[in-house]
């Protein structure tokens, strides 16, 4: 950071020495952030590094224990988001806060309705003001259309309009591209650049480095709760930024001196799965794949292209319309889920909170979940509490879950430790086939390395793994073969020895559909 830049008043937003402590989670300590007006300023960091805590501080959702917040040269205390809004700060949330059944206008003016002298909502005034904002943004909506008719990218644009309507000049966008397809990402940045040209300031939270490098003016890196670097796309590259994020060398997921064996453990043969809405297209369309003993098959793809349905279909949680699933040569297409699990199928779910854990229950109940047919843990109809607790302690030890005891409820653990517990539970029953969905999502580097080690170790002992991941380095490093999913189909098969993240990225957008090599 240059000397003259530290002079007061040069910044739209300046945070000095912000510290915020919470029990159980990495919060912020000594966070410093300087955002120049009229720039897109990225805040990058791993999941759990403390980005959200920082943004909540800036938006007044909680108060820092120490430190100062300066907006446009004025030091402020935000008691609530209302104070932050009054200071010209607006937040575009990751999960949109729009009412589906209201029109675009109604959503935008909600809470700030212009009123005529007779006490009615002045829609004419609202339309005029929103119209002006739309031309600034370069978008055009039918303002009387219900929000339910809009796509995800358009909804985000409405959120931005809403924030601008409230008078925000400093916009915080929390992981705005997580829900967008590549074309919408491009459109979003066009919009943001127009805004910045008009004098607004954008704070852009992300962990997608390519986007940040391509579109942002300045970058602040946050790691383990504190700001560790301030840089710009001119001064760094993808790898340099990634190393700043994790601190030191990146853990290396690779290590592929493996021996894939001949025996096929899991075979998915041309399955179709119906879409959720009536009359919608297939969620899975003629998907076939094989996982052999000692093999990790990676699935690459933008989220929502059928990966979830694929795992659900293999588990038997959704019915297949056509095709078959077999394990070790035995057709299990009509076998109940529980029997598939008992036959050696394990699942690290996509979302550990929604599908993996009983958050309010103690850890020993969590490690027991799904293993009620284990003879060691139960006798007849009854559970054996002591055996279950001992088994839970063994999992905690083996996987290095940091917890005082197995009696602690799962919510008290940090995200990384929760994930290690889930991975540990799924590996504890010595599965033959593991469906691993984002096994290291949202965990710290140490936990990531530990989970990778476990996967590699189990694979060397003959485990077959179907690995779904959004972390392309992880996919390339761990997989023996990579399949790309797009729009419910497998569109390419790639050799990880030759694949690069950039190359995977182009396949994932569906622009290129490689022949299956």
């Amino acid at each position, binding site marked *: 950071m240059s000397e003259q830049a530290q002079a007061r008043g040069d910044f739209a937003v300046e945070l000095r020495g912000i510290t915020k402590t919470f029990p159980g989670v990495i919060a912020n300590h000594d966070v410093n952030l300087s955002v120049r007006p009229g720039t897109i300023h990225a805040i990058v960091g791993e999941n759990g590094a403390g980005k959200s805590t920082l943004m909540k501080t800036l938006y007044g959702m909680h108060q820092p224990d120490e430190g100062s917040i300066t907006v446009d040269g004025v030091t402020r205390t935000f008691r609530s988001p209302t104070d932050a809004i009054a200071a010209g700060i607006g937040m575009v949330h990751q999960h949109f806060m729009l009412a589906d059944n209201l029109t675009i206008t109604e959503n935008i003016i909600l809470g700030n309705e212009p009123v005529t002298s007779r006490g009615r909502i002045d829609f004419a005034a609202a339309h005029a003001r929103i119209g002006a904002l739309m031309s600034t943004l370069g978008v055009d909506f039918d303002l009387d259309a219900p929000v339910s008719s809009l796509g995800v990218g358009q909804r985000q644009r409405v959120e931005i309009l809403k924030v601008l309507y409230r008078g925000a000049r400093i916009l915080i966008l929390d992981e705005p591209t997580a829900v967008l397809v590549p074309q919408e990402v491009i459109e979003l940045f066009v919009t943001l650049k127009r805004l910045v040209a008009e004098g607004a300031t954008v704070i852009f939270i992300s962990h997608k480095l390519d986007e940040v490098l391509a579109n942002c003016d300045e970058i602040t890196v946050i790691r383990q709760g504190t700001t560790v670097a301030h840089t710009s796309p001119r001064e760094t590259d993808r790898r340099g930024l990634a190393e700043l994020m994790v601190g030191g060398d990146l853990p290396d997921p690779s290590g592929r001196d493996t021996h894939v064996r001949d025996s096929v453990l899991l075979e998915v043969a041309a399955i179709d799965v119906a879409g959720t809405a009536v009359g919608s297209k297939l969620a899975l369309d003629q998907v076939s794949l094989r996982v052999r003993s000692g093999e990790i098959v990676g699935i690459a793809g933008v989220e929502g292209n059928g990966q979830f349905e694929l795992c659900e279909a293999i588990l038997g949680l959704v019915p297949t319309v056509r095709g078959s699933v077999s394990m070790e040569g035995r057709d299990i297409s009509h076998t109940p*889920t529980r029997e598939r699990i008992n036959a050696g199928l394990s699942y690290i779910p996509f979302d550990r909170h929604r599908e993996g854990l009983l958050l*309010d229950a103690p850890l020993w109940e969590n490690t027991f979940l799904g293993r009620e047919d284990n003879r060691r843990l139960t006798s007849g109809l009854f559970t054996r509490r002591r055996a279950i607790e001992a088994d839970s302690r063994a999992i905690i030890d083996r996987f290095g879950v940091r917890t005082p005891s197995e009696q602690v409820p799962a919510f008290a653990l940090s995200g990384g430790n929760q994930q290690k517990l889930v991975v540990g539970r799924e590996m504890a029953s010595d599965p033959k086939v593991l469906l691993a969905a984002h096994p290291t999502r949202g965990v710290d580097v140490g936990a990531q390395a530990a989970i990778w080690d476990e996967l590699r170790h189990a694979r060397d002992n003959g485990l077959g793994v179907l690995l779904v991941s959004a972390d392309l380095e992880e996919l390339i490093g761990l997989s023996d073969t990579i399949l790309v999913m797009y729009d419910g189909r497998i569109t390419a098969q790639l050799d990880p020895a030759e694949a690069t993240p950039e190359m995977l990225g182009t396949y994932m957008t569906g622009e290129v559909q490689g022949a299956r090599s």
Partner: protein
Amino acid sequence: MNRQKLQRVLVTSASSVLAIIVALVICAVILLITGKDPVKAYSTLFGAAGETKVLQGMLNRATPLMISAAAVAIGFKMNLFNIGVEGQMRVALLSTAVIGGAVNLPAPLHIAFCFVVAMATGALWSGIAGWLKVKRNVNEVISTIMLNFIALSVVAWSFDTFFRLDKEGESTSLLVKTKDLPRSAWFPDLVDRRLNGMLIVAIVILILFWVLVWKTKFGFQLRASGANSGAARATGVNPKRMIFISMLISGALAGLVGMRALMGDVHAYQNNLAEQQGFNGIAVALLGRNHPVGIFFSALLFGFLGEASGRLQLEDIPKEIVTIMTGIIVLAVVIINEAVKRWDDRRIQRRAAAMVEAAS
């Protein structure tokens, strides 16, 4: 280890105890406002605790409450709110009075037969709500409330049309009943005409409830489905099956709620028999935190309040103050429970973080 367990017990019971205190305070204020002496009221009310007769009455009143609270609690464990215990109980009452009265069996068998009829008809009625939930995704709160109305009307109508027994010259009496159950179906008293043996059955039910929910695989899957249906489903627990089975168990227990009144007291069906005991079970389950031990003591408390409230009238204090108190307890326990849980969650999280920190 033991300290942890003790802490957990204290935290869980704290909200219930606090709720009772809050209710006592608010009722004292109400008494003051209406010009009555709260000290006199409470000393009259709780002074009755010394009398054997009151204690016997308390146990008698607590018996059906324990069973109906267990019926409600098993639903709560699964995130199901069975408000229909009252209706299920009513259907079971008339069916048992009619079918049980139509057969002749040796005493123990006859009693068992009546229980089976009561449980089957209760489960049949709750099964409708379970079926609607599983097949048509109808919220069980709505369906059980509606089924309550239907049950009350259908039972009252069929009793009036087919089963009422008009004694000579008494046909206009309000206390019309069905034909008496044969003596072999009477549930014996522990203390003659004062305390019925169904108390033992209720306690056994609570013990079985505890074993089922906390000690069996089925109970674990039930609690897991209630705690996170997504996680339970991903491990192969069929959520629809769990919903249906727990509704059936809940209804079967609901069927037994009225049996103290029917088989142990009146020995025939009449329209006000065991009235409100299904609804009161909801309050008892809430106060008892859906745990058998909590339910046991809550049922005793409600039983006592009901039994002792009559004393208040002797002192010219309206006994409705007890009804008000019950209502406030239920409201307060829900509110306080939420606050205590938040506080306790933070406490646990902080402590776990501190212990992990210290270990590393």
